[in-house]
Each structure stands twice: as structure tokens, then as C-alpha cells.
């Protein structure tokens, strides 16, 4: 390095220290005490500083916005997960509430029946190709003292009777099953008759045969158990007349009954384990 280069470097180094010091002095002075040189330096540095600060603020803003967006994304993920959890909880609570309503309803039915009952949960349903329930199984069996023929009821009405008990489970013969026969009374006129399941796989229907051909019955009349033979307690709702077949010269008239029970929605049922204590309870 020659002499001039050394002098040049030394001058630049000195300038690097003096220039910021001069600018700093100008910026630190009270505005009322500024000299013409200070004012000139501030005038010179002001726009540069403004542009540079604007650029720096822009860069910072972009980064801060990006960080903010990351936070928003994180918040969104968190809220979505929270929402899913709450939705699940809500569904569970609704299901529980529905179950509680059904149990309360069964409890009310039990009190109305005034007979010894056993609550059972439906654990299996055989479904026909037309999505109709053709068979039920419940989680009570021999241990609960069940045996074949015991009436099975739900809050809406008669479900059927126990067909077979095996161990801790029992099969239920539904009122719509062709093997099911129940003695009934119909409507306010108390017309007597019998119903038997039609066993149709596409719809829930029973056939009803009236004892007398001149009984005044109409579509929509309620069909109750008669209590005859003491197999079923009297006055348990079975369903509603859905069709009457007029037979001009017949000895009896017949029709169809739509069950009151929605077999697809059954979760809990009551099994009547003893005969009715008070036949007029229902």
C-alpha cells in the first residue's frame, strides 16, 4: 500500500466516524438552536430517512402480516378442532337426551301398567330387504326370569311377546309376525276381534278379523288389547285401523291395522313379567 492510499484510507475512516457524528449532532439539537449547517443536514437526511423507513416498515409489515396469518391459520385449526369436538359432544348429548326421554317415558308406562315389569335394551334387529324390522332380540333372558309368551311393550304400545329365551337374551315375536295373534277391542264401540301379523316384508301391517260383521268400525279407530285369556293386559294400544274390507254377505268383516309402535326406532322396551294387578289401569 503506497503513501497516498494510506492517506486516502485514513481520510475515509475519519469521515466514516465524523459524518454520522455530524448528522447525530444535528438531529440531537433543539430545533430552536439549529444552525444553517444543521438545517441543511436535516434537510438532506430527512427524505433519505423517510424513504428508508418507509421501505423498512413495508418489509416489517409483510413479515408481521405473514406471522399474523400464521396465527390466524393456527387459530382456525384450533377453532375447527374445537368445533368438531363440540359437535360430537352435542350429538352425544342429544342422543343421551333422547335416551333419557325414552326411559322417562318407559318409567311412566311402567307406572301406568301397575304390573311387574323388566326393562330391556334392544340388542339386535333383523331387517328385511325392504328395511323393515322382522325380529328383535333384547338383553334380558332366563336370569331376569323371562319366559316365552310374556308381553313386550313400548311407550307407543304393544311390541309383541317373548318368543324364545336363551341364556341372557330373548327373542321377541312382533305383532306383525304371522305367528302373532292377539285378542283385541276396537274404538269406542268396543268391537271385538283378533289380529294376526301379515308378515309382509315391505310394510308393517296386521290383519284384523272382527267377531261380528255389523260392528261399527272405521279407518283410524284405535285397536287395544282386550285382556281376554289374560295373556296380555287389557287396553294396551296396538295400532290403528288402516283399512276395512266390506263383505256384503260375509259372517264377519276384516281389515288391516297399522301398528302404533315404530319398530325401527325401538331402543328400550318393557317386558311384563306378571299379570296385570289392576285391569283398568290403562
Amino acid at each position, binding site marked *: 500500500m503506497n503513501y497516498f492510499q494510506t492517506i486516502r*484510507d485514513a481520510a475515509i475512516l475519519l469521515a466514516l*466516524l465524523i459524518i454520522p457524528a455530524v*448528522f447525530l449532532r444535528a438531529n440531537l439539537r433543539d430545533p430552536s438552536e439549529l444552525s444553517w449547517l444543521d438545517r441543511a443536514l436535516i434537510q438532506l437526511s430527512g427524505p433519505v430517512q423517510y424513504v428508508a423507513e418507509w421501505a423498512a416498515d413495508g418489509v416489517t409489515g409483510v413479515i408481521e402480516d405473514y406471522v399474523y396469518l400464521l396465527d390466524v391459520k393456527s387459530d382456525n385449526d384450533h377453532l375447527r378442532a374445537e368445533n368438531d369436538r363440540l359437535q360430537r359432544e352435542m350429538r352425544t348429548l342429544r342422543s343421551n337426551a333422547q335416551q333419557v326421554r325414552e326411559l322417562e317415558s318407559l318409567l311412566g308406562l311402567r307406572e301406568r301398567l301397575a304390573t311387574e315389569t323388566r326393562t330391556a335394551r334392544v340388542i339386535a334387529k333383523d331387517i328385511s330387504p325392504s328395511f323393515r324390522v322382522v325380529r328383535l332380540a333384547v338383553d334380558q333372558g332366563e336370569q331376569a326370569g323371562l319366559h316365552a309368551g310374556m308381553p313386550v311393550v313400548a311407550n307407543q304400545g304393544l311390541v309383541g311377546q317373548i318368543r324364545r329365551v336363551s341364556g341372557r337374551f330373548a327373542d321377541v315375536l312382533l305383532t306383525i309376525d304371522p305367528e302373532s295373534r292377539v285378542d283385541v277391542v276396537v274404538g269406542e264401540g268396543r268391537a271385538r276381534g283378533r289380529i294376526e301379523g301379515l308378515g309382509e316384508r315391505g310394510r308393517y301391517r296386521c290383519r284384523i278379523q272382527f267377531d261380528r260383521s255389523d260392528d261399527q268400525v272405521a279407518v283410524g279407530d284405535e285397536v287395544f288389547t282386550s285382556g281376554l285369556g289374560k295373556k296380555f293386559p287389557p287396553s294396551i294400544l296396538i295400532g290403528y285401523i288402516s283399512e276395512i274390507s266390506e263383505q256384503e254377505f260375509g259372517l264377519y268383516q276384516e281389515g288391516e291395522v297399522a301398528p302404533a309402535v315404530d319398530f325401527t326406532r325401538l331402543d328400550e322396551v318393557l317386558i311384563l313379567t306378571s299379570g296385570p294387578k289392576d285391569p283398568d289401569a290403562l
Partner: protein
Amino acid sequence: MQRVRGSLIIVLVAFAMLLLQSVFSTVLAPHPFAPYLGLPLVYALATAPGVRPLRGALTAFAIGYSYDLFTGNPLGLHTFVFVLGYFASWLIGYLLPFRGIVFEMIFSFVLTLLLGGLLELIRGFTPGGIARSAATLSVTLFASAFATALLAPILFALVRSVDPESERTPT
């Protein structure tokens, strides 16, 4: 050309670190442990035997100037202190033969404490500046110097990796 590139990278790194520090300050460096990330870069250049003083001082000037623009301080404050810091550390580095991680940490702690004090002193003269108690100021200065010293070896190594002329002489 390689030297200029090295200096440019160091200035950009200093700017990027300042940017990150300002955005993530509450997470990365909570008050009062906010390090002066630019100063160890200046010390590293000043104590590197291969770096010419003119280039080192120009780099320190650029780093200080970017700090001034970015921090909203009076123009010249960081520029002046960083260039002064460069000269001081160059002189100490010239006089002391020691090098190594321990030297870098102690060196950074002492100089940062002094230069931080100088910064605060100059800020004290700024019209409308915020007055702080001596105790608060001391705690802030020591905490900042401590945080800077902790990070100094990394920043020294960073300078060595981007600037081929700033090789460290073994102790």
C-alpha cells in the same frame, strides 16, 4: 469482489436479524435480554487479522446505518456508535493476542456494555427522550450485554463462514 460480497452478506444478515428480532422480540429475546445482534458482527470484522480496516469500518457503517433507519432513532446514532465500536475493537484486537470463544464472549460483553452505555447516554440528550432510572438502565444494559455475549460465538462464526478474510488466529 469476494470481499465486497462478504461485507454485503454480513450487512444483509445484520438487517435480517434485526428484522426477525423486531417481529419476534417477545418470543426470541424478551425484555431486558434483548441482544445487540449487529455489534458482534462488527467485533468479528475488527478482530479478524485479514480484514482491511477500511472495509471493516464501511461494513460497520452500513450495519449501523441500517439500524438507524430501522429503529427510528436519530440518524447517525447507531452509525456513529457502530463505527466507533469498530475502531475500539480493532484497537483492542490489535493489542490483545487472545482469540477463541471465551475471548469472543468476554470481549463482546465488555464492549457491548460500554457501547450500550454510550448509546443510552446519547439517547439521553435526544429532545423528548424517555427518562429511565439508573437501576432500570443498568439492568437493561447488563442483560443486553449478557445476551449479546452468549450469542457472540455464533455470530463470530457466522462472519468467518461468509467472509473468507476473517479467519480466527488460534489462541
